[in-house]
């Protein structure tokens, strides 16, 4: 019994973890200065935002949906939060709290909208979130008049570069907290179990008398929430808010989720897998540069490794099915 469980673990989260460890060892042996605490701190800093977004993305993909609007919504959330943060005549703690509420609030609202529209009119999330991608981007440009917002309070900026024990960046801890919350919800709450069930067979869940709509809308709202948090993390890390940021963030989050073993058709996947997926992308980005690959070679190799990881995953699934 125990050995069956450990085999299952390796076949689930463990498999992608082994790939990550393998990549880390290769870089540690070949890339100068890769295996240093300073560099690991750097990598953690760099994967934080993608990790946060991927937590929400995992919820949506587990339902069999997708969210293409995360990058634009992130930009809109930074603009609103940024505007609040530089409001004059407000004490800094009040401004920071209101700013965080504004950013997270607008993220959740956009998520609610995505979820509600796609559920109410049975529109594929692909289309609804594509629409939201344009709405949020346009709104961000309009509100900011296409300008970068800067000049945040010094204490706010400082917090973004603080490292716990000199190793763990503050924004990485926020991302980690989101991963833990996401993991907890998926594993131990009705909401979480419903997401898997709906992703596997929505009709069956509906026929057994459950209201699937509310869970689906909640999943999109949760995704919006993580994007809102990611927006505040962006501001902490780069000390600006910009209407043009976030292009490509959607694809990075989808990649992290899928590399982490979540099935695009829904119902299968885990939060730990997603986190490991985000780690793999970050480590590749960093390591390939350190071993001295040029821009184009880096892009090609990253592409191959993403495909390779997912191909390996199909074997894992086959094997897991056989052992069941």
């Amino acid at each position: 019994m125990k050995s069956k469980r450990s085999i299952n673990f390796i076949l689930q989260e463990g498999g992608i973890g082994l790939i990550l460890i393998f990549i880390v060892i290769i870089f540690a042996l070949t890339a100068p200065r890769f295996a240093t605490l300073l560099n690991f701190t750097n990598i953690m800093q760099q994967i934080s935002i993608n990790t946060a977004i991927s937590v929400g993305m995992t919820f949506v993909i587990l339902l069999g949906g997708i969210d293409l609007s995360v990058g634009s919504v992130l930009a809109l959330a930074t603009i609103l939060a940024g505007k609040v943060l530089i409001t004059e005549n407000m004490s800094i703690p009040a401004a920071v709290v209101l700013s965080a509420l504004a950013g997270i609030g607008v993220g959740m609202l956009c998520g609610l909208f995505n979820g509600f529209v796609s559920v109410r009119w049975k529109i594929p999330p692909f289309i609804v979130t594509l629409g939201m991608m344009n709405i949020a981007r346009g709104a961000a440009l309009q509100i900011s008049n296409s300008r970068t917002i800067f000049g945040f309070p010094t204490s706010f900026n400082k917090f973004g570069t603080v490292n716990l024990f000199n190793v763990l960046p503050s924004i990485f801890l926020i991302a980690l907290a989101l991963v833990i919350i996401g993991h907890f919800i998926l594993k131990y709450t009705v909401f979480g179990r419903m997401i898997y069930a709906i992703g596997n067979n929505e009709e069956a869940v509906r026929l057994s008398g459950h209201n699937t709509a509310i869970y689906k809308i909640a999943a999109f709202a949760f995704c919006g929430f993580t994007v809102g948090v990611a927006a505040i993390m962006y501001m902490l890390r780069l000390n600006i808010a910009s209407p043009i940021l976030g292009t490509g963030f959607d694809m990075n989050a989808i990649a992290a989720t899928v590399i982490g073993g979540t099935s695009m058709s829904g119902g299968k996947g885990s939060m730990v897998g997603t986190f490991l997926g985000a780690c793999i992308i970050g480590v590749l980005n960093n390591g390939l540069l350190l071993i001295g690959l040029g821009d184009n070679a880096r892009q090609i190799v990253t592409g191959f490794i993403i495909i390779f990881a997912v191909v390996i995953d199909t074997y894992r699934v086959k094997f897991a099915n056989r052992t069941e």
Partner: protein
Amino acid sequence: MKKMNRILGFVLVAVLLLGVISPVAAQDDKPVVGVVLKSLANEFFKTLQEGAEAWAKEDGRYTLDIKGMNSETDIDTQLSIMDTFISQGVDMIILAPADSSALVPSVVKAQAAGIPVVNFDVRLDAEQLKANGLEDFLFVGPDNEEGAYLAGMALAEKIGEGGKVFIIEGNPGADNAIARKAGFDKAVAEGKLELLESSTAHWETEEANALVANLLTKYPEVQGIMCANDSMVLGAQKAVEAAGRDDIQIVGFDNIAAVQDLIKQGKALATVDQFGADMVKMAIEVGQKIIDGEIEPLGWEKTPVKLITIEDLE
């Protein structure tokens, strides 16, 4: 219900059509200048648009119809904007092409319809022009290479001969990215600097931040960073700061407000202003001269580029 939807549809289409037609209907008899911009999401073009509108209002001779899109690479939208201007029969078109080759046939079409076109900001491709029967075509715009060279030399003077630098490039293939890289390279050669690495961050703040952080790990000995635009300066500067380094000089390009702020704080060394608002004004004036037959539409009318350092901002 179905009928209702259909009526709603008609109303919607009618409203959309009105939206397209009304700017033309509202114009008086001033000559209309169609201005085709690249991305209005880009702070540089936004400044350029506002400057041009303010100038047109003050000058009073022209009605400007400024159109752009929300992405730097949306070539299709530019092509359809060109078509719209041609069928509206505007008096002059001022064009900042999103792609230096793809827009050439549109330019030929406009010229054939008797609408003079002035090419500004990014120069149309010489070979593509030749293939379409135009030997040379007047270009009004900044010398991006010269601007980058000025910024690069400012950095070279600050860190001295043998100084070790990175170049953070713009989008691979973009004309201004290529020109700015050439300018930086020239400064590296002339200032006898050592180029440790030249890599792209696609004009992006966050990407530049990650790239520079990783490069700092690889080459802690670096002394200066040349960024092909100011958005990337913002990311590079944060990476330098996060690494606890205050001995690294950074230069950029575009002169955006956020980087002016960094220069004032001594966290960035210099940037380059290319006076976007003046560029449109110059292009229109040159276009007027062509209409009046005063000049031949050939050659390169250079617009100013200026190095901006702390002295310019105080």
